[in-house]
């Protein structure tokens, strides 16, 4: 079904090279304090076309999109719509010109119904609202693009994919001709991505223009008619033609050098059980967050927990780290019970924990690298900074942390370097040698270079015989690193598969709750 619709959309409905672009940006320059976010960027999108903005985090693609929809104004350069110069002073001005942005973080009021969300901000409505009439109007717009939505449903009850559809319907309802989709697949499971791509094709068929913003090479190649690659605020390349594009070439344009994201797995036999979890359940406020979870992690093994955000990952990590007491069940680290004993005890047994919120829970942002290191070192009353300083210097060197020295304040580090400090502290062991490492979304928000380093560090730790539990919403990451993959869905493990033979489709289906094993 999806394949056919792809075929159709590949049809040459804009072959004429001289067609006037629906929207173009000319020599756009945008500065933020200390950063040149866009440096004379040119960009254009034709009617009925999917034009992708590809780039790493911080490459300037979101900034450009923000200017195209009126959220920011360029410092210099200008924007044209159908060849005519326009001024976009606000998102409302953007909407008036038929330009709408679908944000990565949905702009939807959870307590409102779908219809209420769609009509919010529309100026053509009368003072009095007639619910059923509005719902009919919203349904009509949605159906004309083949987007099934339930106008009376409350948005808070919808899945992420459905909410995204509501966002798209909202844009279409407001008469958008050009839709900017900011990282639309970041929050979706594979099946929902397929659905989204079908919707995108339906919209381009109807003559709408899509600006697709992404850093995922695979999907970019699949969906785009043309690709513009951004790096450090500059356009580094244009690639056109669907399917003919080489992901390697795109990656080079994006990063500026060849990259190799390692897919190394443990080749040696794994050792004894370092982490043993038995029948772990957790209820929070009467709601079951984790139910009957049992698994082991062995020395020298990396176990990946896959799942869509909010299916119990955070709670699982915090329970293992001793921050939360489970309702029932037990956790043992290196054979000793750690249930209900608290985080200090867990750390004494050899646990190291890299939380997802690295500057919130991981490091104290206002303290130096050295002081952050001291937090997990000896617990004497008097702090002996001098004795830890050589180690700080050594770790900065060993982990290639870009810092002025041990006194560098954690907040002033880049995301990648902050993560390296956290990993350095956790991997180097505190009061006892690290035997078990629990890491949550370790590469989230990092650029490709830093991702490479962090993944290599995790691989080294595994080779050194440490047991690693990798909890990540980035399915590619879990797939490429883990020796074993467990899928967490609504607080239960619904699927388990060896890393080598894992199938994207199977794992993706399990993440969406469509487990084939029948134990969901």
């Amino acid at each position, binding site marked *: 079904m999806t394949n056919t619709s792809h075929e159709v959309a590949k049809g040459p409905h804009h072959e004429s090279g001289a067609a006037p672009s629906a929207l173009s940006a000319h020599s756009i320059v945008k500065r933020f304090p200390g950063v040149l976010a866009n440096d004379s960027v040119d960009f254009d999108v034709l009617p009925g076309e999917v034009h992708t903005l590809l780039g790493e985090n911080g490459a300037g693609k979101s900034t450009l999109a923000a200017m195209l929809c009126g959220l920011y104004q360029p410092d210099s350069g200008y924007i044209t719509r159908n060849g005519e110069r326009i001024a976009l002073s606000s998102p409302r001005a953007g909407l008036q010109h038929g330009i709408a942005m679908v944000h990565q973080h949905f702009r939807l009021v*959870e307590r409102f119904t779908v219809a209420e969300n769609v009509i919010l901000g529309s100026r053509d409505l009368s003072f*009095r609202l007639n619910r059923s009439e509005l719902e009919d109007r919203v349904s009509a717009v949605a159906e004309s693009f083949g987007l099934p939505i339930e106008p009376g449903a409350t948005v808070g009850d919808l899945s992420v994919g459905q909410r995204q559809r509501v966002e798209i319907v909202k844009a279409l309802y407001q008469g958008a001709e050009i839709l900017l989709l900011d990282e639309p697949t970041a929050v979706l499971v594979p099946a929902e991505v397929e659905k989204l791509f079908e919707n995108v094709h339906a919209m381009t068929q109807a003559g709408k223009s899509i600006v697709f913003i992404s850093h995922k090479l695979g999907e970019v190649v699949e969906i785009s008619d043309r690709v513009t690659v951004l790096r450090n605020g500059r356009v580094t390349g244009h690639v056109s033609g669907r399917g003919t594009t080489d992901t390697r070439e795109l990656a080079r344009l994006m990063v500026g050098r060849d990259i190799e994201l390692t897919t190394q797995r443990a080749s040696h036999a794994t050792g004894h059980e370092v982490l043993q979890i038995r029948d772990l359940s957790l209820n929070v406020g009467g709601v079951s967050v984790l139910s009957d979870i049992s698994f082991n992690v062995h020395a020298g093994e990396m176990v990946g927990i896959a799942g869509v955000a909010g299916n119990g990952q955070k709670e699982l990590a915090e329970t293992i780290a001793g921050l939360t007491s489970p309702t029932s069940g037990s956790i043992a680290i290196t054979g000793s019970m750690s249930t209900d004993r608290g985080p200090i005890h867990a750390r004494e047994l050899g646990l190291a924990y890299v939380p997802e919120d690295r500057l919130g829970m991981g490091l104290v942002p206002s303290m130096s690298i050295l002081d952050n290191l001291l937090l997990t070192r000896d617990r004497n009353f008097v702090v002996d900074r001098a004795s830890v300083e050589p180690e700080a210097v050594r770790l900065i060197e060993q982990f290639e942390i870009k810092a002025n020295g041990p006194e560098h304040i954690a907040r002033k580090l880049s995301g990648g370097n902050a993560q390296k400090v956290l990993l350095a502290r956790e991997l180097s062991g505190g009061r006892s040698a690290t035997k078990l490492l629990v890491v949550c979304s370790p590469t989230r928000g990092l650029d490709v270079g830093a991702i490479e380093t962090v993944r290599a560090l995790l691989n080294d730790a595994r080779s050194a015989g440490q047991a690693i539990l990798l909890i990540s919403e980035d399915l590619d990451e879990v797939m490429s690193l883990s020796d074993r993959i467990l899928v967490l869905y609504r607080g239960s493990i619904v699927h388990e598969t060896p890393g080598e033979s894992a199938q994207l489709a199977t794992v993706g289906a399990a993440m969406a709750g469509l487990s084939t094993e029948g134990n969901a």
Partner: protein
Amino acid sequence: MNENIWVLASADSVAIATTLILAALGALFTERSGVLNLGIEGILLTAAISSFLAADTSGSIWLGLLIGSLAGALLACIHALLTVVLRANQIVAGLALVIFGTGLANFLGKPVEGKTVTTIIHPLSFGPLSDIPLIGPIIFGQDIITYASIAIAILSSLYLFRSRPGLELRATGDDPATVDAQGLSVASIRIRYTLFGGLLVGLGGSWLMLAQSAAWHQASTTNGIGWIALALVVFAGWRPIRLIFGAVLFGFTLQLPFTLQAEQITFIPSALMQMLPYLATLVALIALSRPSMRNKLGAPQALGTPFVRDER
């Protein structure tokens, strides 16, 4: 004549409820836009003395009500400036407003402390209807502002849930980023409803002065009604219709000690009874401080959070 006491008590409950309805509606509009204004008590006091002074010098109740309401809006304006424009902490700004409003009222009212206002609002007369036993004095024995307050509450409910601007107001309190992305100004909406809320609280304070107290006493004119109004908004789940019933219930509880004393019922200490509404306020504020409770009660999700467009 015991029956009469209870009839009078019920009528009194409705009367006290008027101030509560107006003050709580003011708080409700403010909070629905995402701004928490803890300064209601201070606004009530300032509005009360302002209306007293205006009515006393001019001899016109209506001018008194107008000046009192405007004084309320003026104080709310300070809150809007601090919390919406300067993005100060709303709790701190609100508490500061209580202290400022109390002090200002004290200052303005010093020369007239204990003085009685010459003209007060009189109940409307419905002829024979007001003489009907029991329900006559309760339903047909009130003044125009009391009837107006109930009408305002009903209209508020329609406005909130059945109108386009009401939808935008509720969206601003729940998810200001979404409203911003639609090209509506969060700041403008919040300032407008904070001012409107202050106006309603001011009307409530003026009415309290001109219809209820008759004499100005800085220490006892409002008697904590501003705090009770805040609690009432929580118990009403930010819904105007429920707020009417809540206000009558609170009003009944507030006057109960006096009735019981008149009835010479002494097995319940009257001090304990007087404490009840304040205890309820304490419970409401504790409930407000727990995020899970707030959601269950239906609090606007962005209540108390300054809005900043996220830069990236």
